[in-house]
């Protein structure tokens, strides 16, 4: 069947319109008001399924990242980076309490131990705590007071050693006592003190 010559332009036009419509309908909206959807999750959200949506307009400066995490799986746990106070909000399905980082001084005695310095061992921190509780003997102390051993039971290398001499002659600053020369436990810190040991008997 022959096509009338005058109908060709109409068919061509329809074909062009069809192609153009397909192209137009398949094109993504790139207007500034569009919300950009990031299909790939950030590494921090890899524990839970979901999507990260950045509501900030495209092309506009963003002062700080503000991400909204919408988990689509029950019980998805946020990472520390998404805890409240870090500029990132947790939403439905997020156990905020679990997201709180542990308090630095949560354990008993941690505050008294002071801030942990780089490279410190637990023993060093403990020694410092003891040294603060029982301050080091001061120079200038008369002999009768010089032997209160504030570091009883501690390794002297951790607290600076012990002065020597039975008097620890006030102000002289002579040397340090060694571990073997430590005083016996003083009264009130466990065990019998030296006087009662010397006395003997059930006293």
């Amino acid at each position, binding site marked *: 069947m022959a096509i009338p010559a005058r109908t060709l332009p109409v068919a061509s036009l329809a074909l062009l319109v069809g192609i153009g419509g397909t192209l137009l309908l398949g094109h993504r909206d790139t207007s500034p008001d569009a919300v950009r959807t990031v299909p790939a999750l950030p590494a921090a959200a890899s524990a839970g399924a979901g999507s990260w949506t950045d509501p900030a307009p495209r092309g506009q400066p963003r002062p700080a990242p503000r991400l909204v995490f919408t988990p689509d799986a029950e019980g998805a746990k946020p990472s520390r980076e998404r805890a409240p106070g870090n500029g990132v909000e947790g939403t439905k399905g997020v156990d905020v309490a679990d997201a709180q980082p542990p308090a630095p001084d949560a354990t008993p005695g941690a505050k008294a131990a002071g801030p942990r310095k780089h490279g410190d061992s637990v023993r060093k921190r403990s020694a410092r705590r003891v040294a603060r509780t029982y301050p080091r003997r001061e120079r200038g102390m008369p*002999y009768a007071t010089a032997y209160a051993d504030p570091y009883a039971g501690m390794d002297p290398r951790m607290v600076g050693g012990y002065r020597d001499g039975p*008097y620890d002659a006030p102000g002289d600053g002579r040397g340090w006592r060694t571990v073997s*020369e*430590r*005083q016996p436990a003083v009264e009130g810190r466990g065990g019998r003190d030296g006087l009662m040991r*010397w006395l003997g008997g059930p006293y």
Partner: protein
Amino acid sequence: MRARIALSLALTSVHVSPASALAPADMGDRTAAIATEYLRAWSGDGRSAVADVPYVYGPTVLFYGHPYSRAGLMAEKRRAVERWPVRRYAIRPGTLRVTCNVPEAKCAARATMDYAVSNPAMGTSARGSARFDLGVGFAGPRPLILYEGGAAGSRGGR
């Protein structure tokens, strides 16, 4: 000087009979007197107290955790006196406690001691309180100090 005489009297008044023959109450009383007079004798601004060492101390003394001979003890006391030429020691009233081990003929005195010492030449001073321990043996012909120790209490000075 008067304090030294009092200390000597406290130590020698039982010389007439073996110290071990004392009644427990007498041992306690004697120990309390020795402790009081001992600190009084050490209070002063001279070095004469060092001379008492051979007389008031036993041949071996457990001195602040260390065993000392009389000679060694004298040396230590001399150093202390040089460091603090001016000394004031006193038992705080009501704090002296005496415990005796009668079978072994020895008594222990414990008290809170207030002190104030200074070294005018160096311009240093210290004052405060401390626990004062003194052990006295009564096994010999006269009582002897066999133990001395203590622990720091509150302090200040410089």
